[in-house]
Each structure stands twice: as structure tokens, then as C-alpha cells.
């Protein structure tokens, strides 16, 4: 390695991290200024969860069985509902084009946006989950596994969903289309997330499911920003 590349290497590294932190800071600031919108998404989660006891009936044993699955499905839907805000506004007013033209690598900027999106929409949802789980009569250990699963799973939902959100930019009827594209990809996370609580109930250690969720998260962290950046480029063509 010659001297020039030695000097260039840390700079390139800095610019990737710089892109991530710039995008996180900007999107979090924007999110804080639209708190009402974030509140609505959180309320959507609460209301969907509330509908299930009303539809199924208030039998505690049934609700306890269904609880983890209901919370996970509601989390999937809430995550889906929040996805358009990731790119749509920036795409509509041309900001996304300026972002793509910036010297920062686009995957880094996209990663930053996804991180901010999860902090604004996914993290509050995870924080609210123990309360809703109590309503379904889950005990302390089950709530712990459920929340751990959601902590590992919801970032993956944001990462995968970001690809779909970028692919459907500027497309007619993009809301329903986004659901068709993304929900099938969410299925494994739902299975392992709800399965972790199930295996705890069966007297097993939920470590296997949680490990798979963590592995999925790591794979998504590596792959999703690249796919998402490619999708943004295609949308801007």
C-alpha cells in the first residue's frame, strides 16, 4: 500500500460514518418536529392489538395463547404503515435527489435514514409492548423474551421495509403494493419472534429463535442498505 492510499483510507472511512451520522441527525430532527404523526402510528399499534380481545372474546387462557402472535402481527402492520415516511417526502420535494448526489456513499446515507426511522417508529413500539403484553396476561419471563425478540426483530423489519419503500417510490397505489412486496419477507421474523415465546412456554430455551433473529438482523444490516441504495438510484433514474 502506498502513502496516498494510506492517507485516503481513513478519509473514506470517515465519510461513510459521516454520512450515517448526518442522516441520523437530520431524520431524527425531522421526526421530532412531526411528533403527532409518530403518535398516530403508535396509536395504530395499540388499537390493532386492542381489536383482538374484542374480536376473539375476553377468555384469559385464549388471550394468553394468542398474545405473542397478536403483538407481533400488530408490530408488522405498524412497521408497514410507517414505511412510506422513510423516503416519500424526500422524494416528492427533490431532497432525495440531492442526497443521492452528495459525496457521501448512498448506502451510508440510507443506513442513517433507516436507523433514524427505527429510533422514531420501532423503538417506541418496543417500549410500549410490555404494557400491551400485560393486557394479554403474559408473565414476566414471557414479556422479557417477547421484548428481546422485538428489539432484535423490528430493526430487521425497518431494514427490509426500506427496500420496499424505495422500490415503490412514485408508483401508483404504492401503499397496497408495499404490503404485497414486504409482508412475505416479514414472515420469517414473525415466525421466529412469536416462536421464541412459544418455546419458552414449552419449557425450552428460546435462545435458538433469538439467535436466528439476531443473525437475520446482522445479515440485513449488511445487505439491506446496499439493495436499498440500488433501489433509490433506480427510482431517481
Amino acid at each position, binding site marked *: 500500500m502506498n502513502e496516498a492510499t494510506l492517507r485516503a483510507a481513513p478519509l473514506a472511512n470517515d465519510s461513510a460514518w459521516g454520512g450515517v451520522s448526518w442522516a441520523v441527525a437530520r431524520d431524527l430532527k425531522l421526526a421530532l418536529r412531526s411528533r403527532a404523526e409518530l403518535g398516530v402510528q403508535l396509536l395504530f399499534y395499540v388499537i390493532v392489538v386492542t381489536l383482538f380481545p374484542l374480536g376473539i372474546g375476553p377468555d384469559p387462557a385464549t388471550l394468553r395463547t394468542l398474545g405473542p402472535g397478536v403483538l407481533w402481527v400488530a408490530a408488522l402492520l405498524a412497521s408497514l404503515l410507517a414505511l412510506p415516511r422513510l423516503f416519500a417526502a424526500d422524494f416528492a420535494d427533490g431532497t432525495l435527489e440531492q442526497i443521492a448526489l452528495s459525496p457521501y456513499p448512498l448506502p451510508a446515507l440510507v443506513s442513517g435514514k433507516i436507523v433514524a426511522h427505527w429510533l422514531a417508529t420501532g423503538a417506541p413500539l418496543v417500549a410500549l409492548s410490555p404494557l400491551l403484553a400485560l393486557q394479554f396476561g403474559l408473565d414476566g419471563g414471557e414479556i422479557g423474551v417477547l421484548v428481546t425478540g422485538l428489539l432484535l426483530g423490528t430493526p430487521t423489519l425497518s431494514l427490509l421495509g426500506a427496500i420496499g419503500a424505495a422500490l415503490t417510490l412514485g*408508483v*401508483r397505489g404504492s401503499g397496497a403494493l408495499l404490503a404485497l*412486496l414486504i*409482508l*412475505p419477507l416479514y*414472515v420469517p421474523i414473525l415466525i421466529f419472534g412469536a416462536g421464541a415465546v412459544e418455546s419458552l412456554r414449552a419449557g425450552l430455551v428460546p435462545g435458538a429463535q433469538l439467535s436466528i433473529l439476531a443473525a437475520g438482523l446482522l445479515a440485513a444490516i449488511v445487505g439491506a442498505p446496499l439493495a436499498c441504495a*440500488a433501489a433509490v438510484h*433506480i427510482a431517481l433514474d
Partner: protein
Amino acid sequence: MSSSTVNWFRYSSPASFFPLAGKLVPWFAAAAALLSVLGLWLGLVVAPTDAQQGDTYRIIFIHVPAAWMSMFIYLVMAFWSALALMFNTRLSAMMVQALAPTGALFTFIALVSGSLWGRPAWGTYWAWDARMTSELILLFLYFGYLALHAAIADSRRADRASAVLVLVGVVNVPIIYFSVKWWNTLHQGATVSLTAAPRMAAVMLTAMLIMSLAAWFYAIAVTLLRVQAVILEREGRAAWALNLAGAE
């Protein structure tokens, strides 16, 4: 490109691929028809009745080839999608577009034939076991591809966007294939493998393999026919297409 080697890129142009596809279609269609007649005769007439399952097992002559093709066609779509994104070739994306409906059809056939077999064999049309669920997800992935491609008006953008989607969804194929090993669920494991002696009567195996070949040739014939239609739809106004129309 030197003239001493075969120029593979020649056929990446829709104009030169169109006549080649036209020449190949009748051959593959004829092979598919012959093989399926032979395979069905072997499977439905010659093959003996199974000792445990009676005649219901005969659905494997449709079910297994359809299930194989459903996964294989998705992999082929992923291959062409990768080429389309890397080399920006129009024809690769057209191939993906031509393959998708056939892949969805085979997935649907695999699901329906499986559930018809499940009723007498397992006592239920549907169980939420790993392989069925992931095959159902595969069907949704095909639908997602078709919907995304149809929703984007600009066909070049539609090609590239849906190519990304196909490549993201390809993770599902190994999950379907190994689901029977990873999760010990209702659907039985593979009876046929390359590494062990087959655990079924030779005539049944032969019939199933012939039906699989028939499914392959059918898929190739239909895809080539459909890719011709896609080419004409997109480039029907090009000089070569108008010349072709004038010559015939």
C-alpha cells in the same frame, strides 16, 4: 470481440434473439407434449398401486415436478435479474418478465395438488407446516414481482426495480428446500436424492423424472413464446421488427 470465438453477446440483443426463440419454441413444445404423454402413461397405467397409499400417491407425478419447477424458475429469474442489473441488458429483464407467470403457475399447481393429496393422506387440505408455508410465501413473491412490474409505467425502470425485488426474495428458496430437514414437520423429506439410492419403485421414479423433464421443456417453450411477445410489445416499432413483419 474476436471473430474466432462464439460471440455469446450476439443473442443478448432482442433483434437477434427473436428469430432464434421462434425456431426453438416448436421443438421444446413437441418434446414437452411427447414426454408428458409418456410420463403420464408410465405413471398412471404402468406404475403399480402403492401398498400404503393406494392410488392417491399418483399425484406426485404432477406435484413433485411442479414443486421443483416453482423453486428452480425463481432461481433462474434471480440469475437473469442479476445479469440485468450488472450488465444492464434489456433481454435479461425480458426473460425474467417472461418466466414469472410460469413460475407462479407451477407454484400454484404444487400447492393445489399438494393439498388435494393431503386430504386423503394426512386428513387435512392444509397444515401450516414449514414447507407449505414457505411455498405459499414463494407464490406471494411471484405475485409481488408481477404486481411491482405492472405498477411501474416505465418498462426500463420496472425491469430494474423488480430485479432488485427478485434478488431480495431469493433468500426464500433455500428456506423452502431445506425446510423439511430444518423443521421436523408434517411434509415428508425428499425421497429422491443424488447421493443415495432412491427409496421408490424404479418405474415410479422413471415416470416422475420424465414428467419433470416434460415440465422443464414446457416451461422453456412457454417462456420463449412469452419473451417473443414481450419483445414485440416493447420493440414492435423498431426497424428490425417492422422488416420482419414486412417479410412475412
